[in-house]
């Protein structure tokens, strides 16, 4: 039914994104792209979506989406108690810009 050889040959028709879609995805992802990068991502993302389109061949009716890789297990919760000590000086030592224990960012509110 499914065949690895198919992936190697890649015969199905390409699904195509548009330039505007790539720009919108880059904005959502907060990534600045050079103009020359846009056609590159346009081509490769379209091809990745073709590859991913193979999933439509699977009949997943009545199958629940996997929530945890180990069957029957869920995320463990911990008691809602403070366990961390204040180490902000150590953690802020690798920040690009800090002052008086605060992270500095460009002005947000005029």
């Amino acid at each position, binding site marked *: *039914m*499914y*065949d*690895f*050889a198919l*992936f*190697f040959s890649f015969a199905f028709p390409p699904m195509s994104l548009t330039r505007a*879609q*790539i720009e919108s*995805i*880059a904005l*959502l*992802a*907060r*990534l*600045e*792209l050079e103009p020359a*990068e846009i056609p*590159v*991502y346009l081509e*490769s*993302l379209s*091809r*990745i*979506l073709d*590859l*991913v*389109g*193979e*999933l*439509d*061949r*699977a009949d*997943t009716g009545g*199958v*629940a*989406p*996997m*929530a*945890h*890789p*180990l*069957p029957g*297990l869920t*995320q*463990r*919760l*911990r008691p809602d108690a403070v366990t961390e000590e204040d*180490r902000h000086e*150590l*953690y802020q*030592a*690798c*920040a*690009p*810009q800090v002052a008086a224990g605060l*992270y500095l*960012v*460009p*002005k947000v509110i005029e």
Partner: protein
Amino acid sequence: MIHKNSLTELAAGLRARKFSSVELVRAYLERIEASQPKLNAFISVLGSQALEAAAAADRDIAAGRGRALTGVPIAHKDLFCTAGVRTTCGSRMLGNFVSPYDATVVAKLKAAGAITLGKLNMDEFAMGSSNETSYYGPVRNPWNTDFVPGGSSGGSAAAVAARLVPGATATDTGGSIRQPAALCGITGIKPTYGRVSRYGMIAFASSLDQGGVLTTSAQDAALMLREMAGFDPNDSTSVDTPVPDYVAELDAPLAGLKVGLIKEFLDEGLERENAQRVREALAILERLGASLREVSLPNLPLSVPAYYVVAPAECSSNLARYDGVRFGHRCKDPRDLQDLYRRSRGEGFGAEVKRRIMTGTYVLSAGYYDAYYLKAQRVRQLIAADFKRAFGEVDILAGPTTPTAAFRIGAKTADPITMYLNDIYTIGANLAGLPALSVPCGFIDRLPVGLQMVGPHFAEARLLNVAHRYQLETDWHRHSPERFA
């Protein structure tokens, strides 16, 4: 010639005081320095720190305080956080990041007495199968330096194959331990999801990422993994079950072992010679008392498409933390907050990382979530069910680790899809959270290839046992590249 010893032999030799840890560390540091222009396996080398730790290890051994790995040199993939030491994840984004804490894996190996010689090169944020996406330059394969070592743990694999360290940590999200192990002719194990703590392991795709080891033999992998594995309250997906003594179980006989050959893996797409090497390896297991039968996992060929939804989706969310504010690269003179985010990320991430973030952003965006992400998580369930059914019939599954041996540097960089297909045989185990390992099983045109074995959840001991018995009958794992003899 001290580097001809296995990690197990080095640990024993140190305890018996045949040589000192300082001698050992010095010898390996020299090898690392000499190899660096040829292989580029390391991003950081910790010479003076390592020698100080070695002197302390020698004092511990003299005082009878030696532990399992006291004085044994190792190195960490540069995505394990190391307190006070630069941790780059192969990215410009973290080029100046000095971790404030140790990953649990790093702390556990330190507690067992191991000495860190440095941080190993890798594909940027572990996204790659050839170690060509590293901001710090490609790693070269010690068997032929025109070829890739595989990825993303390419630095770890090249370093162990060239005997620059006897063992290294690595991580595997879609094959990043097993694929470079195969391409460099060494042994690598990806444990069950939740077996090794992910605390302090820089996240790529959290439901798939798992830490493991690269060594020359299964025996060494058993020793190192035993010290690394275990419950960690700091990782909410860490599983609270006892860690067996993997070393003690290595010698169990294989009589009665049922090995399943994954039918879908032996179809077209696998090179004839590679298939031949795998069949020769399986014949040895048969001779040791195992029985072989073919099993079908009909949904397994959908692993690659399912992975290229789930992994980029999780990547886009995990990598949202790199915002140029709290740590990591920040662009110069941002105009406003949006500009700060977009340029810091645009400059800090390389092309493949951006591609995956954008793929993930798209599949999670409004209107597409059900069609892509939920669909992939449903297919993932079908793949897991295929494995479960197979493990009702057989004890372990076996097949090739990769479709081909190593390829030339640059041969697959132009086409991401061709690169993604390198992991066609390894991704399934990640999607189902299963343990899997790769052992060297021969050569094609003087480049190594690997046999992959996959087991049920928490069957690491059985996999290491089968691999060890195989390695008692073969010497592929003892071959080392001539240029680094």
